[in-house]
Structure formats: C-alpha cells, structure tokens
C-alpha cells in the first residue's frame, strides 16, 4: 500500500470530468430570468477527475480503513457486530430509495408497514408501552428521552425539578444531553464493587430531582444488581428513570428495561440491531416509553387505521415534544433494523443476549489466564468487561493506549480505551455474539504476545502501530496549526467570491 494517497483535488486535470454522469448543458437563455446580483461569480473549487480516477481514489482510500468486514472490533460500549448483507440489500430496493418523504402515505404503505411493525417489536423487546423511531442517533434519542421527562414534569405543573442524576461512569452524552435539555447534572458515584453508591443516591434525590440516567449493565461491564432499590428511591422522590440503551445487547431477550422499572429509554439501532456504523453514522436512536410518557413521544409516529398505515404528526399528537428531523428520521436505517429483527425473531433476540454474554465471559477468562487484570475481578462480565493496565503502566511503563495501538499491528481494532474515566489505564472489551470462538482465541493469543512484548521489548508497544499507512499522529500540531481544508499550494487561499 502506498504510504500516502493524494487528495482528490491533486489528481485529475483542469477541465476533466466524469462527463457521462452529467446532465446535458442548458441553453443560457433558460437562465435569463435570474438576477445577476444573486449569481455566483466564480466556480467552486471542486475536483476535476474522470470516473475511473474517482473510483480508484476512493477505492484506495477505503483500503486505508479497518472495518467489521475485515477485522474484529472488540470496542466496548459500541457493539460492533456483523452487519448482515441482507439488511442492506432489502433496504436499498429501488422503490424504497425513490420514495419522497412528502409523498402521500398511500404511496408508502410498504415502508410504513415495516416501520409500524418495527415499533411493535421494539415495544415487546423493551417491555414498554410505546415507541417512536424519529431520533436520528443515540444522542438524539437521549435528547428526546430527557425532553419527555421535562415535558412530563411540566405538564403536571411541577417546575421545581431541575436536576438530573447521572452516574460518574456514564457515557459523555448523558451529561451533555442533560445540559442541552436545561438540566443541572448531579454525578452519582460508583461503589467499589461497580454498583451504584446507594447512600449517595439517597442523599442526592429530592424535590429537585427530575430523574436519573442509567445504563444497565453499566459501562463498567457489570449488571447493576440494586436496580430494584434504585427504582424505588428515584420514583419515591418523584423522579423518572431513563435507560441508556447503549448496552441493551447484553440483556436482549432476557431482561427488559420496562420490567426493571425504567420509564423511558433509547436504543442504538446501529449497535443492538446491527445497522452499519458507516465510519461514524448514520445511526438511529429509537425511543420507548411507558404509558405516562406516551403523549410526549417525538413525531412523526407510524399509526394504523384498520389496514392502512399513516404518519402521525403534531395534529394528532398535541403534547409531543415535537420534531427532531426535517422528515421522518433515518428511515433507511430503520428498514435495515427491521430486516435484522425479523430474521432474528423471538428466539434470535434471546440468543443474541445470551451469546454476547457468553463471548464476553469467555474472552475475560482467557485474558485473565494470560495475566491481564480485570477491573472487577469478583463480578460476572455482562456483554463486555473492563481490564486495567495500571500494573503494566507502573512496572513496565506501557499504557493502555500502547496496547491498543499494538493490537492494530496484529490486525485487530483497538478496544475502547480510557473509558470509563474512573478506572485507570483501562480497556473496555466487547466481543459481540457474531464473533466465533476461533476469532476470540486469535485475539487472546495476540494479547498474550503483546503482554510478552511489554515485558521484553516495550518500545515495540510505545511506538506502535508499525504496519499501518501512518504511525501515531501529532495531535498537538493538528489542534494548533489547524488545517481543515485543502488549499492549492500555489494559489492564494482566498475563498471564492460572488
């Protein structure tokens, strides 16, 4: 592989273009009704390449990526499971792709039927009363969920509740979302054994408590055993319970958030329901609620009158927190999740949670036998687990980041590093149910070799990766000498003028 690939602006030649893809030129007189003052003066600086130039460039760029189709991604809290090809193929049927979002419901009965059934299946899987598929990402699902908590309290005239309780181990989106919704964050400490500190919780709740945001199993890779008591404490104080669905894969089909007493939750369909991550999106963050929050669900929802499906908006849903997207959310992602969940069916759902848990506990047992230190050695792993390299950091001066980077050389994506923040030098490892024993064994063997290297030749780790297109990048330079857009070397960097 070439060490560098020029930018698309540096290949091709002036005047070249993928002309077979262009529409025919329009006669100038067809534009004579446009006022000159509103027109662009000079062309935008876009690439000038032929089709084959572009195909080679972007294919070569693709080859500079790790991806699930080529590598194991044990990324804790990210659920990087296999993305079945059928989900893609059947969401890309031409009729689905061509449908305009404002076309009448009558010309969308096929797609709406899929979305309606997906709502129903997600209700059943979460044990909650109603679902909206509107949020476009997990973080937007969180936003919708917390907005519903706020709308609920407001609808009861309860305006004193301005605090949300968030675990100190929570994903950063939880406190960020709370702030976006106008709440003050109270951090809930974690006890030694990885469960929540109930005394601190009792002290924190009161008439200002709007609710609590929890992930269960938590981001520490263990199931919160006191969930029943937490539910009683928060509900008794008048607060609501928010379930962050980031770790839903661990309990799919075995335990339902609704049964644990949660009032509202979001799901990351790009995690639990196998839709692709696409290099950072699109996701989908469906929300589920119990009956008391149902009126506040974001619009649109998919409703059914007899055998006809239709989108319900603010007119039918006057108490809704409103719209989150211009149209109906990430429908293409939802169709992929629908295909996946129909292929799983009720038995498959349960198998997912069980085998995700089996794989995590197996890999934990292997790594522990090799000599890695579990962060919570007394606890059962959920679908993921935490190991800490504090001993290696102290004794060998090798960090979690060094191990993560060295894994890349062995052809494995790095686990999640330095999250949660409260465990020093940690790696959060989530194998998912779609990986075979052989893959887990190969990963464990790579981890064994890395530990050996850490003892014998730690420099191999500190300077890793060695086999990728680039070595570790200068982040300080990137932040201080901001280079965010390509500039032609000779030309002045002036933006195009009107």
């Amino acid at each position, binding site marked *: 592989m070439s060490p560098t690939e020029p930018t698309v602006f540096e290949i091709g030649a002036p005047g070249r273009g*993928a002309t077979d893809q262009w529409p025919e030129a329009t006669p100038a007189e067809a534009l004579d009704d446009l006022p000159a003052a509103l027109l662009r003066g000079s062309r935008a600086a876009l690439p000038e390449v032929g089709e084959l130039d572009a195909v080679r460039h972007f294919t070569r760029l693709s*080859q*500079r990526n*790790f991806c699930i189709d080529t590598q194991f991604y044990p990324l804790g809290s990210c659920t990087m499971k296999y993305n079945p090809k059928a989900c893609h193929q059947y969401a890309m049927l031409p009729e689905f792709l061509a449908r305009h979002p404002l076309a009448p419901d009558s010309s969308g009965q096929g797609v709406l039927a899929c979305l309606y059934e997906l709502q129903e299946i997600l209700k059943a899987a979460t044990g909650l009363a109603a679902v909206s598929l509107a949020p476009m990402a997990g*973080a937007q699902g969180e936003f919708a969920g917390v907005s519903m908590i706020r709308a609920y309290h407001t609808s009861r005239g309860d305006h004193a509740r301005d605090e949300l309780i968030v675990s100190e181990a929570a994903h950063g989106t939880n406190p960020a979302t709370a702030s976006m919704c106008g709440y003050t964050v109270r951090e809930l400490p974690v006890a030694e054994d990885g469960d929540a500190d109930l005394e601190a919780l009792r002290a924190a709740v009161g008439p200002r408590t709007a609710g609590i945001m929890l992930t269960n199993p938590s981001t520490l890779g263990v199931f919160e055993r006191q969930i029943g008591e937490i539910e009683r404490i928060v509900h008794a104080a008048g607060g609501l319970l928010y379930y962050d669905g980031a770790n839903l894969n661990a309990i799919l089909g075995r335990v339902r958030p609704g049964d644990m007493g949660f009032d509202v939750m979001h799901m990351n369909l790009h995690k639990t329901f196998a839709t692709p991550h696409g290099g950072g999106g699109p996701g989908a963050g469906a929300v589920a609620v119990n009956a008391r929050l149902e009126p506040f669900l974001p619009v649109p929802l998919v409703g059914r009158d007899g055998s006809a499906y239709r989108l319900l908006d603010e007119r039918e849903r006057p108490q809704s927190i409103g719209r989150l997207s211009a149209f109906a959310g990430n429908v293409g992602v939802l169709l992929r999740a629908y295909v996946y969940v129909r292929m799983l069916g009720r038995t498959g759902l349960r198998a997912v949670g069980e085998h995700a848990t089996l794989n995590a506990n197996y890999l934990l047992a292997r790594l522990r036998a090799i000599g890695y230190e579990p962060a919570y050695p007394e606890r059962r792993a959920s679908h993921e687990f935490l190991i800490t390299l504090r001993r290696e950091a102290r004794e060998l001066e090798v960090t979690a980041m060094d191990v993560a980077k060295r894994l*890349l050389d062995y052809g494995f994506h790095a686990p999640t590093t330095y999250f949660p923040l409260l465990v020093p030098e940690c790696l959060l490892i989530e194998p998912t149910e779609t990986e075979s024993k052989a893959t887990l064994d190969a990963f464990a063997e790579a981890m064994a070799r890395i530990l050996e290297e850490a003892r014998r030749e730690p420099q191999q780790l500190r300077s890793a990766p060695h086999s990728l297109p680039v070595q570790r990048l200068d982040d300080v330079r990137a932040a201080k000498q901001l280079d965010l857009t390509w500039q032609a070397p000779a030309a002045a960097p002036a933006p195009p003028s009107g």
Partner: protein
Amino acid sequence: MAFIPHMSADVSAMLRTIGVASIDELFDEIPPELAAAELHDVPEPLNEMQIGRLMRERARTDGAPLVFVGAGAYEHHIPAAVWALAARGEFYTSYTPYQAEASQGTLQVIYEFQTMIASLTGLEVANASLYDGASALAEAALMAVRANRRSTSKRLLVPTTVHPHYRGVLETIAAPQGLTFDPLPYAANGGIDAAALARGETADCAAIVLQQPNFFGALEDVDAITDWAHAKGMLVIAVVNPVSLALLKPPGAWGTEGADIVVGEGQPLGVPLASGGPYFGFMATRRSYVRSMPGRIVGRTLDRVGRVGYTLTLQAREQHIRRAKATSNICTNQGLLVTAATIHLSLLGAEGLARTAAACHARTRALIERLCRLPGVGRRFAGPYFHEVVLSFDRPVAPLLERLARAGIVGGYDLSRHYPELGHALLVCATETKTEADLERYQQALAQALQDAPSARRQP
C-alpha cells in the same frame, strides 16, 4: 441463527473455560424476578429468502410515482459509482475514526468533504456533518448564541419563509436552552418583508436565519438582509441548498461581510430520497468561530516520522471530553452519507454541478409555463426562483393531489396547512431528472384532475 457462528461444541468448550455449567449461570447476578417471559409479541424468525420476498412485496406496494415535490428533499441523478463505492464494507462497516491510524480512509474522505463544503459555501471551515439540514439549523442557532460576542441575547429572527419543519426542529432542540424565535413575515414577492426590517422593531437578537432559496423556492435579497443584520450586531445563519450554490452567490459572499454560519441539507448531493433519511446536514463557518462549532472536525497533520495523515481534531469541544459543558451532545457525523456526497461531488465537479443546477431551473421554468396555461392556475409570487415555485389554484389542492396520486404522480406540497393565508397554494419542483415527456404527463394529468375536481365556484 441470529448470525451467531457457534456450534454446540464451541459453547461447551467456552463454558468449561469460564467454569460454569450453562449460559444461564452467566446471568446469575441478575435478580431472578427480572427474567423476561417469552416475547410472544415478536414474530418467529424468517430466513433470508423469506424476508427477501416480504421486502420485495412491500417495495412493490410503494410503486414508483413521478415526483414533482421538493420542499427540502430533491430527486437527482446519482452516478452509479457513488453507492458502488460508498457501500464497500471498508466504508460501510467501519467505526467512527477514533483510531486514526486504522481510519485514514474515512478521515481523508471527511477532509476532502470539508474542503468541498467550504468551497461551495464560500466560508473558511466546515465540519464533518450533522444529522440533517433541520437539526443542523438548530445546532447553528445554539452556536450563534455562543459565538456572538456583540450580543448576549438568546433571541433569533426566524422568517416564516424558512421551512416550517426546520422551524419545528429549531423549537424542539434549541428552546430547552432558553432560545426564543421571533417570526418575520414575508412580502408580496414571497421574500422576507423588507418593510418589516426597516421598521426596526426588532429588539437585540443574536442572529437571523436566512434561507436561500427560501421555502417557497423564491430568492431572497440576501445582500441587503445580511448587511442589515450585521449592522444590528446579529450573526447571519444561512440555510442553503448545495446544488443551488453552483449557480447562486455563495453565502460567504453575501453582503459586505458574508454570512457567519452556513448550514443546509446535504441530501441533494448523492443521497437517495428514501422516505426522509438518512440524510446529512452540513455546516461551515468563519475560522474565528471554529471552536464554537459542534460536531466532528478532521484536521491534516503529520505522523511521528513526518508523513501526512488525518485525525479528528478540536475534540475538547465534544461530549466525550467536555461532558455537561460540550458544544453539543452529538457524537456521530453522518459518515456514510458524507462519503457518498464526496464521491458525488468528485464525479460532478463544478461543471457537472452547475449543469445540474441549470437544468433544475430550466425544467422548473418549463413546468410552470405549462401548468400556468391551465385554467385557474397561476404563480402565487412573481419574484425570481431557483427550482421550486408556489402555484395558486381556484380550488382546494388536496383533492387535486389525490387525483394526481392515482395517476402515479406526486404533484407537489400542499401549503394550506402551514400557510393557510396563501389560499389554495401548491409548491412544485422539477429537477434535471424530469424529461419533457414527464412535464407533459404532469400537465395532462393536472388538466384532467381540474376537470374532475370541484372548483371553488361550485363549492363556495
């Protein structure tokens, strides 16, 4: 089953290694009363052949009507190479590029994308994208309040010529942080009412939102409004259609100083309509505001041996570091859609995009010339437009649209719900995908519908 590769011998071996007798034992920390019953409401599994058949049947149900509606989502030709490349597993199944060394492909694509968006909008920097155009506007509103050092106001001027759904999303996302929105009326030409601006009733505001072309397809007097807003100490948030920017003045050149933040819906750049998503929102701004910008940003730098490489930068603005003080709770960009758009723009180039924009305008012009020949049909506003126009009718629009739908035509967007004051009004659009024969078919179908549908006179 469920894409799980284990054979029973694997499971037994794994359980032995763990030291438990059964999978059930792995759940022994979960209070037994929480165990879920069987999920009767979830159907039995389907295999790939069965689900394939079901999905094809459903797709057939939806048909393939001829589309003359835009209103925020536009049908364009997408070169075959765009999705052939974007759907490669290396793009499709990769993760957010936190591990830069293993994500140079995705990162370089985003860097190229940022360059294209900055160039199209005429601004200095762009981010790696947001969820869609509407949520990008909400993020821009929050950003404007953070970035405007001349005003501490949390009020924004939002003309009613901004897409009504965008205004809804603005309310949902930005109001919880205390932002308020003052509407600005439109004038007889379908643009922002200059007289309302001149009256100067506007109190201290952080920013004005300026959509070009506006929701009616009309072209606003962006130079004058931008200068007016800057004189009042406001920032200017432009909402633009990226295809139109091949033809129209880029926001960076509006007025004397240019717009401050530019957002828009990226769907017209290689993303299929797909009932509304996934799309992507883009955002560009001045370099001096870059730290107030939400979302991922990719920078070019060097590695430890001096090779050029790409990495996420300015991450300290983001939720995973700043937590409750982050610029936004957003984690992802719309990576896959951005990949498609970057390939799309590479294939089109400036010339191809300009041809597309010109063809859109020409097709729309030809369409309205045809439709306005029909009795009782006319243009509602007289001013210049890009590729959408409001038509007025002498009778309700909904029955006409129903008749057109039965003829396999999505005839436009009925404005009566959001703009009842316009009377019987329909927003129509034609893009480069429409042939003369398509326009002819629409004209004839509408003529037939007008004959069949009750007129206003007969239904007073």
